[in-house]
């Protein structure tokens, strides 16, 4: 005879170790779990609110410079090391984990205009207002040694920027022209010029390393090919471009930080129309740097704030500011894509989280699962007005807030005028120019 009784297989409910979670049998019958959309909506709403609650991006401020921080550089091999050059010619090397300065060098007289590290991380280069290019060892001098540069190159004109090749012992400076130097020589192996205005910044392409981009004060962006020792193309925008940055994951994409408060992302093969115009700043954009994942970039502005833009969005997803932060001159995204550093006028370097509400440190698997789920929920319900409003809300300083209002009015007025002009003129006589094309003056072959 069979004895009927309830029996369960211990495998289904006994856990292997006490560290495991209790096994809970689940019934996925949809009738037992009704209202899935409203429930998930509420969860998404809560996740969005919590994200705003936990958004505390500011991590640290590194102080020590005695003048405004003019340039920043990342160490290519060490996440914790950062270099900065100030407006009084001082270069400082910082340790981010300890949040202190580990070395100070009086590198130049006048501004340190540019700083860059060698790809191997053993030395770095600085250019200054004193018409010199100096190469320094990354490690400090030994006992009894004097703090001296490895090499010093004396130029004829002031250099305003420097960047190092990503793979070889070559670096490029800019000033009156773009010079490409072999590290071993005191003369440039190649100098390229197109036009006569002073060039403010030069950047090597990190993927196709023979490509360079520069921007000059006659409102243009020039692309160069180092191998063929020739400029390639030039695009002239409405206003001056302060600096450019190449996308580290997409070889032909770069973003230009412009004086007209916008950033322009270009495909270098089609310069006549930018891929995207990024607007949100209310003053000149001074610096831009890509996230190493190539999905986002950060921009520093004269309006005392930094903003994070997704590459494919025209509006920023995040804005960082503090009461004490003045005009932000330089900004860098760290190589692990977790943090952002910015150097500003008031002599401080600030460290921010790239993702404002992210929890730092090791996450347990449950935390990770919850984080992912919340993220997906936020994405899923992002178009809902209630959630959108909460997710978009940021506190802004009064100056920026009022500026935004003002500019909105101005823009609206301009748009209205244009619409009226089109309306009251012969059809077709006033061309409709898209926002993207509006800012490009010309492309010179």
């Amino acid at each position, binding site marked *: *005879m069979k*004895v*009927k*009784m309830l029996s369960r297989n211990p495998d289904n409910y006994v856990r292997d170790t006490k560290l495991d979670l209790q096994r809970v049998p689940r019934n*996925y019958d949809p009738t037992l*779990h009704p209202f*899935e*959309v409203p*429930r*998930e909506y509420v969860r998404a709403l809560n996740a969005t609110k919590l994200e705003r609650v936990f958004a505390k991006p500011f991590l640290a401020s590194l102080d020590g410079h005695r003048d405004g921080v003019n340039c920043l550089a990342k160490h*290519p*091999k060490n*996440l914790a090391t950062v270099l900065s050059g100030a407006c009084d010619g001082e270069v400082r090397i910082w340790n981010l984990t300890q949040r202190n300065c580990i070395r100070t060098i009086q590198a130049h007289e006048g501004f340190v205009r540019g700083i860059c590290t060698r790809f191997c991380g053993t030395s770095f280069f600085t250019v200054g207002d004193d018409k010199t290019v100096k190469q320094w060892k990354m490690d400090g001098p030994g006992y009894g040694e004097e703090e001296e540069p490895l090499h010093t190159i004396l130029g004829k004109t002031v250099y305003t920027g420097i960047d190092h*090749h*990503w793979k*070889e*012992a*070559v670096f490029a400076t800019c000033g009156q022209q773009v010079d*490409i130097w*072999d590290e071993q020589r005191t003369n440039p*192996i*190649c100098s390229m010029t197109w036009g006569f205005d002073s060039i403010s910044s030069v950047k090597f392409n990190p*993927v*196709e*390393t*023979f490509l360079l981009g520069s921007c000059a004060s006659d409102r243009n962006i020039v*692309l160069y*090919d*180092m*191998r*063929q*020792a*020739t400029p*390639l*193309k030039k695009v002239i925008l409405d206003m001056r471009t302060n600096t450019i940055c190449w996308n*580290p*994951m*997409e*070889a*032909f*994409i770069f973003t230009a930080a412009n004086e007209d408060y916008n950033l322009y992302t270009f495909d270098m*093969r089609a310069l006549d129309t930018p891929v995207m115009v990024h607007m949100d700043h209310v003053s000149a954009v001074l610096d831009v740097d890509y996230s*190493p*994942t*190539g999905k986002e970039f950060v921009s520093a502005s004269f309006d005392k704030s930094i903003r994070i833009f997704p590459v494919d969005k025209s509006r920023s997803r995040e804005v960082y500011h503090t009461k004490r932060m003045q005009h932000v001159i330089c900004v860098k995204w760290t190589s*692990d*894509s*977790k943090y952002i550093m910015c150097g500003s006028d008031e002599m401080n370097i600030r460290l921010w989280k790239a993702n404002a509400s992210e929890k730092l440190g090791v996450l347990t698997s449950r935390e990770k*699962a919850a984080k*992912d*789920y919340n*993220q*997906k*929920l936020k994405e*899923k*319900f992002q*178009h809902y*007005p*209630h959630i959108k409003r909460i997710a978009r809300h940021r506190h802004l300083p009064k100056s920026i807030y009022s500026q935004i209002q003002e500019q909105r009015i101005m823009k609206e007025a301009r748009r209205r005028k244009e619409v009226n002009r089109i309306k009251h003129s012969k059809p077709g006589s006033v061309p409709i120019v898209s926002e993207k094309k509006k800012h490009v003056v010309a492309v010179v*072959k």
Partner: protein
Amino acid sequence: MTANRLAESLLALSQQEELVDLPKDYLLSGSEDEGDNDGEREHQKLLEAISSLDGKNRRKLAERSEASLKVSEFNVSSEGSGEKLVLADLLEPVKTSSSLATVKKQLNRVKSKKTVELPLNKEEIERIHREVAFNKTAKVLSKWDPVVLKNRQAEQLVFPLEKEEPAIAPIEHVLSGWKARTPLEQEIFNLLHKNKQPVADPLLTPVEKASLQAMSLEEAKMRRAELQRARALQSYYEAKARREKKIKSKKYHKVVKKGKAKKALKEFEQLRKVNPAAALEELEKIEKARMMERMSLKHQNSGKWAKSKAIMAKYDLEARQAMQEQLAKNKELTQKLQVASESEEEEGGTEEKVEELLVPDVVNEVQMNADGPNPWMLRSCTSDTKEAATQEDPEQLPEPEAHEVSESEGEDRPVAEEEILLREFEERRSLRKRSELSQDAEPAGSQETKDSSSQEVLSELRVLSQKLKENDQSRKQKASSEGTIPQVQREEPATEEEEPLLLQRPERVQTLEELEELGKEECFQNKELPRPVLEGQQSERTPNNRPDAPKEKKKKEQMIDLQNLLTTQSPSVKSLAVPTIEELEDEEERNQRQMIKEAFAGDDVIRDFLKEKREAVEASKPKDVDLTLPGWGEWGGVGLKPSAKKRRRFLIKAPEGPPRKDKNLPNVIINEKRNIHTAAHQVRVLPYPFTHHWQFERTIQTPIGSTWNTQRAFQKLTTPKVVTKPGHIINPIKAEDVGYRSSSRSDLSVIQRNPKRITTRHKKQLKKSSVD
């Protein structure tokens, strides 16, 4: 266009230049007749030089020494201007004289030659240069298009992109850079050195190396052949063993086993004769096996197999035999070979006890009971009077079986499901009967046994009836099942006799079934109340069962009373034609309806709803606007109303609104007003990537949480788009990462080898582009 014109002018220019570049000697020879003219010019120059000596820098207009039609201001005769000088004109005088053959040849060669293009101006050159370089670069960059597209569309990107290969250095490298420092390490190294074990290169010891060297080729071949043979043999043997193992015949295996045992015994005998010491050892081995057997639980019925057999034992003769065999083996193995003379009896006694303890009674019972009853049922009787029972059982067995047979034969009907179920019940009953018989040892308790079993049958009846309902089979089959019921009910009056029987039983309830029974007995009275509905119907339909009728009637009445409390419905007399099941359902439905009616007795829901709807309709109707001002243009005051004319004049009639959506739906109120509270939580416009609203709705409607999805699906649905490892540097994408060949030449070497110059190819390209 400009380029075209430019090229034309260039061509003309170059032709002129060529003329100028004519061989010098020819020119010299040609100008001999103009010698006097030259002298004159020199004289003029001399004069000028002299005149300029006097300090006054006077400029004189050049004097004309010959007459000319057109005077140029640059003192050059422009005679014949407008006519182009052609090479052929110059050649004409040459043709006549044969002495100038070389010159002629040269000139002809010049004529046939194509003209060299004029170098472009610098800006133009640079432009070409740039354009070519740009095209080249764009081509290089276009190889990244698929990669970029893939990365943009990727479901998930994990950074850093490059796979970090775990750097496994060969052990020799590790060892070479490593030295023994601690005393322990040094000791180990010493040992290794002593034994000539490899330290640095762990591939071969010196012995191994020596052996490798020592073995000749032939030897190695022989060895290999030998090994091959051995392997082949082994494989044959294995195949054979597998084949034999697959044979299912138990007899065959038995025979094999027996043969083996015999062989072993024979060997043992021989061994005893030949080598007593070895035999003793063998004996010891056997003894050891016995000890092991005693220690272990092998060959006792605690194993899986044994348990399964125990279950099967009551049905299967073979299983029983197998168990017996196993037990015998156990006995055999646990028995000592050399029997101690003193404690023979005692040991025998203990062994038996041990056996009794170890072996569950079931098996013993099974051994004796050929019929194989339920071991659980039998335990109770075996515990007190085991031997007696075992002795008596064979005699008792035939009776229940006969009973069974008689019953089954009595109900001679087609084998339906119900039949099978019934038979099961009967079997159970017989089992129980047997157990009771063994317990009481009373010869003729037929009535009582029936009583006890009847409870069981009754309890199962409920289940049966349900099954019947479900099956809804043909009438005949039903009738057959019903035929059994009267029998059961006939036995019912005897239930009162159950209690003394219960009291008689001294042991506590041992099995689950008994427990169940007890429970049933307790609730028997209660259960009977709902059941008679069925029984009543059945009794109605089986009028031949007259003896039971009064009781049934009585019960039915009782039932009606119970129902009366709820429904206040007169019991309807059911005809035979109406199927019982339907009736049952009808009744249930009616019950349900009645219950609802009672629950909502006070409120008239329908009327309320209608009223509500009317109100809603009224509220949604647009209202007329009355703008009459009382007292305006006429007398006003208490009791005076504005005139009808005025009212008519100032009443603004509201336009008729669109028809309500629920106009033709009597049971529904559709609210056509937009609810602002819900609107705050609704998406107003279709978001960007979606092209149709149902796409968006579908994405919203599929839940992603673990409440609705399995763990795996949940993980898949919530994978983040970008994953970065904390503390890892993410380098820019490289050509090697995505499977492209990176350029082997370094940028530096290229730049040093590449001087800045324009090639003819570039020019051609330019021309092409300008023509286009």
